[in-house]
């Protein structure tokens, strides 16, 4: 019986015809009747927020703020699109050092008032005349609108175009590189926010977060392995579809996406071509790639310098910080070698934490957390900055208005020096180790940890063997003090990393950028070996 390709090609689906619908307008209730509003900048939303603030004040709030959010998600695969949209409102009230919070998905004047009263009640129940030693750092009223600049708004591009782009990429990868593509999808997120406070702030923002996921699989190698690699340059970023289409993205990739796929493919082939040998435990000078450095930065200094963590506000959840005496340590404590400078910001173009105003209405500033190895500052929001008697650095963040803002990491950077690139660093090791793409398991004080990744031994500047199952152990302070070389600016790489924090846990995504680096005397162990 004949089977022809027509009958075989019953795969996938996409529609060429557009289903035109009349765009429905955002509606909210301002009075008794629903009224359409054009966008998040509609001035009538300020009246809505005022209902919440007025009710909070009437119920005893010393300070109150309110957030509205509309979050849109669109997920793309080659043959599928899924959509989600959610609205929220959250009211926060401060009474004598105690916060109360109330939130719901309902935007009506009555609900605003209810939330204002409820948040005030939540705060007042606990404000029993025993004030906390946490004065809020001052803030000024802010007004205005800000839209995160993106080159290509993924919600305004034809979904078919995006799908064709993903499909074209996959065709090219299969045809030219002869690779399988087990995963190829994209998630676009856009969030419109309103912030208003009893300080007189009223501001609106539009933020984007785009995340790509492209996994390529090599055919089976002579050693029996069939490795896959995830494209590094598609991690979450404050960008639009240019995450895929741009010819280059500063600190993300130096060339087009296809060139980057090819580069990573060559790198993977090379990595897997090295002979597999058991690990020789010991201490080695180690060249780390940029990705591993971002993870190290994120989970040690990045966490330790969250002031709320250092003060013990996460003690029952993620843990505390080794920087346990913030006031005493600031300006003195040696976190690492003099080569180490770590800064934070919420203004980097393309950063996942980039905003104009944080979720407390503070315009974030640049922060130098570690300068030349010395602890210089902490990440703060108004509450923790107040304890330091300093200005908030604007690190308040909530995923949507339904969650209360928490202190979350800004865009972090391990400042580049003049150490060159990763290959050069490997080339300088006479008897050392190089570690790439390590994942870390760091303790609940961000002090000690273990990393597993691709571990290679290096002899006379060349990689000679691969050690699957090897891991490195580290103590954060020792590690950073042993920093010997830090790579140069052109070799800084930025990744979007997700993490959970708080009770209940909230997901936050921020960007970390770092160059490759060499650290001396890193302890190498066999992760699979028991005592």
């Amino acid at each position, binding site marked *: 019986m004949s089977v022809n390709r027509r009958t075989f090609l019953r795969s996938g689906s996409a529609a060429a015809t557009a289903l035109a619908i009349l765009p429905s307008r955002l509606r909210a209730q301002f009075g008794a009747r629903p009224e359409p509003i054009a966008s998040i900048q509609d001035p009538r939303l300020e009246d809505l927020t005022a209902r919440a603030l007025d009710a909070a004040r009437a119920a005893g709030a010393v300070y109150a703020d309110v957030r509205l959010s509309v979050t849109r998600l669109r997920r793309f695969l080659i043959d599928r699109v899924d959509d989600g949209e959610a609205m929220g409102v959250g009211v926060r009230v401060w009474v004598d050092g105690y916060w109360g919070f109330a939130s719901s998905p309902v*935007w009506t004047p009555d609900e605003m008032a209810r939330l204002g009263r409820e948040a005030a009640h939540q705060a007042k129940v606990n404000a029993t005349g025993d004030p906390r030693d946490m004065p809020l750092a001052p803030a000024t009223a802010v007004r205005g609108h800000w839209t995160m600049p993106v080159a290509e708004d993924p919600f305004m591009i034809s979904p078919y175009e995006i799908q064709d782009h993903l499909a074209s990429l996959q065709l090219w990868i299969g045809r030219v590189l002869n690779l399988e593509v087990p995963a190829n999808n994209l998630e676009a997120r856009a969030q419109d926010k309103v912030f208003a406070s009893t300080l007189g702030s009223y501001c609106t923002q539009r933020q984007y977060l785009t995340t790509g996921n492209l996994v390529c699989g090599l055919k089976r190698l002579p050693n029996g392995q069939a490795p896959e690699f995830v494209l590094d340059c598609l991690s979450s970023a404050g960008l639009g579809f240019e995450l895929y289409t741009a010819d280059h993205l500063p600190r993300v990739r130096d060339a087009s996406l296809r060139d980057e796929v090819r580069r990573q493919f060559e790198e993977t082939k090379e990595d897997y071509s090295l002979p597999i040998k058991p690990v020789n435990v010991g201490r080695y000078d180690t060249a780390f790639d940029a990705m591993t450095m971002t993870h190290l930065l994120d989970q040690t200094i990045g966490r330790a310098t969250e002031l709320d963590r250092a003060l013990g506000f996460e003690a029952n959840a993620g843990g505390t910080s080794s920087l346990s005496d913030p006031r005493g340590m600031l300006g003195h404590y040696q976190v690492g070698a003099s080569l180490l400078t770590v800064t934070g910001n919420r203004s980097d173009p393309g950063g996942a934490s980039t905003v104009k105003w944080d979720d407390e209405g503070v315009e974030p500033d640049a922060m130098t957390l570690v300068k030349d190895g010395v602890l210089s500052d902490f990440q703060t929001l108004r509450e923790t900055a107040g304890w330091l008697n300093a200005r908030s650095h604007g690190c308040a963040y909530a995923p949507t208005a339904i969650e209360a803002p928490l202190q979350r990491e800004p865009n972090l950077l391990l400042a580049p020096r003049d150490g060159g690139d990763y290959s050069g660093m490997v080339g300088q090791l006479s008897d050392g180790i190089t570690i790439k793409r390590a994942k870390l398991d760091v303790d609940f004080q961000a002090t000690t940890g273990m990393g597993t990744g691709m571990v290679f031994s290096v002899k006379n500047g060349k990689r000679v063997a691969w050690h699957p199952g090897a891991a490195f152990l580290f103590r954060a302070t020792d590690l950073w003090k042993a920093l010997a070389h830090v790579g140069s600016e052109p070799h800084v790489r930025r990744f979007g990393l997700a993490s959970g924090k708080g009770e209940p846990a909230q997901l936050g995504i921020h960007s970390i950028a770092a160059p490759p680096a060499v650290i001396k005397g890193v302890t190498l162990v066999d992760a699979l070996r028991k005592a």
Partner: protein
Amino acid sequence: MRCTVLLLAMAFAPVVVRAQVRFEWPDTTVDLAKYTTADDCLALSGRDYVHIHRHRQMTTWDDTLPVPPWLELESVAPAEAQDVARCMARFTEPRTDLKDWVPLTVLYLIANRDHDASVVMGRRLAEVPADHVHERTQVTDSIIRLYVTARPSRLDSAEAILLRRAKGDDVFHRLTTYFWLFKESEWHADTVRMQRVGRWMLSLGDSLTPAQRQSDAFRDIGKIDFRGTGVSDGEALGGDAVLLQAVRAVRGWTPYLDSLRRSSAAFIALVREDWRHATQTQDVSDYPPGHHAAPLSADYWFPPQSGAVARPTPGRVSLIVFQDPTKCNGVATSDADVVQDWLCLNLLARARRLAIQFPQLDVTVVTPTHGYFMYATPPAPAEEAAKIREFMAPHTVPGEAVGVSVTSTWRLPAPDGRIIEKPWANYEHYVFGRNFRQPTIALIDTDGTILTTGEFDITRLADLIDILVHRAGT
């Protein structure tokens, strides 16, 4: 403003109306200016094709229709062709990047730019030094495949290139390339070309050594490249089966009919001769035609009285349809596989057409049980048999007998407990060796001799049955 709102809120009883989400949808027109590479245009073409095909499926449930040859001959749908033409406007020969020659060729052919296709293919071939015979041959085979898999196929162009292809010692690649052209010719109802190419295949087949015929490469011949990307997929037919098709094509259909008119023995002798030619062996014990048809067994017959006579019934022309619903996805256990498989229902539909055309034909459908049926609680065998019958009811073949065999099983000891099915007798009796897969149908003459087990499509079967029933004088 705020006061006004508050007053309004107090003046009217508040209606519980919530704010509304929008799910805004952008203009879906694609911006072809952004489609700068051949892969971009190929993605667009693929999406168009799938969409058009899907929409066709919404109005045509073709699961049981025969595949008309003009389906293969039809041009690309206008919507897709227009999109591709516009997308490809930026590509002109000879200025394109040769690394993209494969998708460029596919797209030129969709856009009816055959001249550009031949230019780019020619450029690719010209890149290869004349003395790199192996590489030249690989590129040539790729060119042939591109012509063959084009929509519609460019069979003349493919054949012209094939004639210039080197005839080196890469016999398996060559046979595969011949087979591509052969098969596409068949689907295009281009009998003359089919026979011509079939002769080339046989000439090559005759030259193979026994060692070559035993090789894995020979067994892998016949994988169809459905996607037209040059990457083979699907199950291999095997070199023997491929050559058998060539033998049949070269002979033409008439000799089979003539021989069957004389006698079944003459027909069997002819097809066995085909088999020996194709396999270069004398032993026909593996080959079903000519064997005596074993009586079918079943535990439940529908209608019940149909089991009272032996089937196939001596003195009757019989068509047996082997239907295993689980292998057809027709017996579903989850939402995911509750779909109707083209292959199995098509088989029943063909049987029905034959039964209508030939009232003298006895049709017996046999099927095994598996201990489950769709979502139902594992039924008792009688119940499962009834459910299977009910499932096939919309495709009833007039006058058919449906025999359901309860599959014998044994279980791995507890706690594993997995069912291991014993072979189904009806299959076992109609498979005679490693060369043939489980049969889908069997045509039996009045003397109980197997004439074929699924080698011929429905029009051929109709011709054979016509002769058999006339011979029988029924």
